[in-house]
């Protein structure tokens, strides 16, 4: 025992992409009630890529939730798990998969907290069927701006709930989460993977697979041009029935840690091209089928504990957008052509299927396809993200804040017609905008608290103002 909210020394905090960094104190305690008082932001395992979990310039402290990881209740009949916000998905999988339950929606890593999953309203390979994580959340306990502790759910304080799910922690501190886990017939996955010659074939197969498979995902080679542009591997999966599954439970996978930063230039156009070609041809057979370990299926990258070190000290960013397909299925091709024209090298390019919008007002997915690409950060990254964002604005898509570190406020506003409604709810619950992050200063125009060394936002280089001013018709 000790006095709660122990002194926390200042250290450099960053997201998973390792840029930007902010010097701040991360308050850590088992008692979130104590450390969330008068603190502008909570942070979990820091797996959002950009600056969503970082304090704004001038804010010195964030509340770290990871030590608040107690399970408060579990009902085997309904599958509803209630726990403190710092409980990690890794623990949930370790404890509940052997009992026949799994998270209703899983991101690509287990190193996330419940609170983080709600704040980002994470989605997974099953979005076209099961929606986002927030759709399975039955209630939240929060500390709101006036200091009160408030419960909200889809029926109670519904506005607060809708603004918090996907709200990037900007409506208050998430203290407890109740979520309905999903029953699974076995802990193993049946998969079928298909090699596809180009992006048109890939997207067609992705949409087709979505009608019969609960989970679909795939990656494409975004370095290859011409008629093989966007060639890739589509992986379809479902939980194995008991009769199909191996009799033994899956052993936890061993992890490997990268002990130091690799040189910053290691991920470059040449290595990315080689890597993409190898991954494509590693899947030499046109179709593969089998039963696979759940961790290899859901969390292939978790085996390398700190794979972000591959990008060196300059760090990396992930750009993930969702693009509607109403205007035509060639949107993926045009996105990839833009990437090639900008000579952007991404070792991994993931294209997923997205279903209808969920309950969260700022939740990322909408009907269409989601494309995610990783880049090593360099002097051209801001211009690249600007160009991609202009494309996304024109197409009526949007970006995922949990990945974002470079999007400008004007672009985000142009992408997000729901923002006004979200902001109205935020004004009601937090009129002084006590909750803020470095990201909310950047994309929502929140004011940083103190006169700190903050770079003035540069003017976007193009016809952005015109785009932002034009109201777009939306079908969703």
């Amino acid at each position, binding site marked *: *025992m*000790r*006095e*709660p909210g*122990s*002194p*926390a*020394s200042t250290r450099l905090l960053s997201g998973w992409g390792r840029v930007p960094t902010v010097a701040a*104190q991360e*308050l*850590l*305690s*088992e008692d979130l009630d104590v450390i969330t008082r008068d603190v502008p932001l909570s942070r979990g395992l820091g797996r959002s890529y950009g600056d969503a979990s970082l304090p704004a310039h001038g804010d010195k402290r964030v509340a*770290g939730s990871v*030590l608040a990881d*107690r*399970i*408060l*209740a*579990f009902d085997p009949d309904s599958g509803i798990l209630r726990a403190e916000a710092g409980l990690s998905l890794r623990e949930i999988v370790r*404890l509940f998969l052997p*009992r026949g339950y799994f998270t209703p929606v899983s991101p690509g890593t287990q190193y996330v907290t419940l609170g983080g999953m709600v704040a980002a309203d994470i989605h997974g390979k099953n979005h076209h069927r099961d929606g986002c994580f927030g759709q399975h959340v039955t209630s939240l306990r929060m500390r709101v701006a006036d200091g009160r502790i408030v419960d909200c759910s889809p029926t109670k304080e519904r506005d607060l709930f809708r603004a918090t799910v996907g709200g990037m922690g900007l409506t208050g501190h998430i203290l407890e989460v109740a979520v309905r886990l999903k029953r699974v017939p076995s802990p193993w996955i049946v998969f079928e993977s298909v090699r596809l010659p180009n992006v048109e074939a890939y997207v067609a197969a992705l949409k087709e697979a979505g009608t019969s498979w609960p989970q679909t995902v795939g990656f494409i080679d975004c370095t290859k041009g011409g008629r093989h542009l966007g060639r890739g591997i589509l992986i379809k999966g479902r939980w194995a029935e008991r009769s199909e599954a191996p009799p033994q439970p899956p052993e936890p996978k061993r992890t490997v840690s990268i002990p130091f930063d690799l040189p910053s230039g290691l991920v470059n156009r040449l290595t990315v091209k080689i890597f993409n070609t190898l991954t494509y041809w590693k899947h030499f057979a046109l179709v593969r089928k089998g039963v696979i370990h759940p961790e290899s299926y859901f969390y292939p990258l978790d085996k390398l504990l700190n794979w972000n070190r591959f990008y060196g000290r300059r760090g990396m960013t992930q750009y993930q957008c969702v693009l509607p397909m109403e205007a035509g299925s060639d949107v993926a091709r045009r996105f990839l052509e833009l990437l090639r024209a900008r000579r952007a090298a991404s070792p991994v390019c993931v294209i997923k299927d997205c279903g209808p919008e969920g309950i969260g007002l700022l939740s990322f997915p909408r009907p269409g396809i989601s494309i995610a690409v990783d880049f090593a950060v360099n002097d051209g990254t801001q211009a690249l993200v600007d160009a991609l964002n202009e494309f996304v604005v024109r197409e009526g898509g949007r970006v995922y804040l949990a990945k974002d570190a470079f999007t400008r406020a004007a672009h985000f506003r142009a992408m997000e017609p729901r923002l006004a409604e979200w902001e109205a709810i935020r004004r009601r619950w937090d009129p002084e905008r006590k909750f803020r992050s470095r990201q909310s200063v950047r994309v929502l125009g929140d004011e940083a608290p103190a006169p700190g060394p903050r770079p003035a936002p540069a003017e976007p280089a193009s016809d952005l103002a015109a785009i932002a001013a034009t109201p777009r018709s939306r079908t969703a």
Partner: protein
Amino acid sequence: MKVVLLGATKGMGRAMGRLLVERKHELFLLGRDEADVARSARDLEVRGGRPANSVGVAACDLARPEGFATALDAAERALGKLDAIIVTAALFATQARLEDDPAFAGELLAANFTGTVLFCEAARKRLLAKGGGTLCVFSSVAGERGRKPVIIYGAAKAGLSHYLEGLDHKFSAQGLRVVTVKPGFVKTGMTAGLPAPPFAGEPEGVAKAVLAAIERGRPVVYVPGAWALIMFVIRLLPRFVMRKLNF
């Protein structure tokens, strides 16, 4: 085993409780804040796949020795014969804070030494009355030698370690197995914000090592293990070196 755990809500005690329920041991929790202890009990029940309310709790504050008997009575009523009593509870503060706040320094000394020793007295009497058992107490490497960053905290832990050593000498023949745990730097809420030295441990690893020591009846266990060597060297250093060193 039937285990009573004082200090299960946080840090190494929390990890200890989780390991014990996952290994199917029966638990009864004691702690200062009964509502908080009850929350930990629910956590352990779900993790261990036990029915609701099967992990019992009672209030027990190291600053209030008059409550020890009631707390241990409740534990014996719930579990029957006790196999092990584990004490992880203690107060902590940096040397700077303790120097600035004599009132809190007094509270810490009272809880970490007087309170803990009196609790162990009550605990060992109950174990011996039923033919023996294990008394496992978390002391600290801070009690190994007077050191600048942990003068007051370390003094209480030094006294506690000596007491536990004597207890082992006197009662081991009668079936009391005393396990003195000496954690080095472990990454918990207690040490959050302090610069972590090399060989810093995780609470889950500590719990495994301590349970192994209980099962094998090892009288003293350093966790992580490297701290046995570190403290061996520190004990050998001459005074003029210790005066220079800030360790």
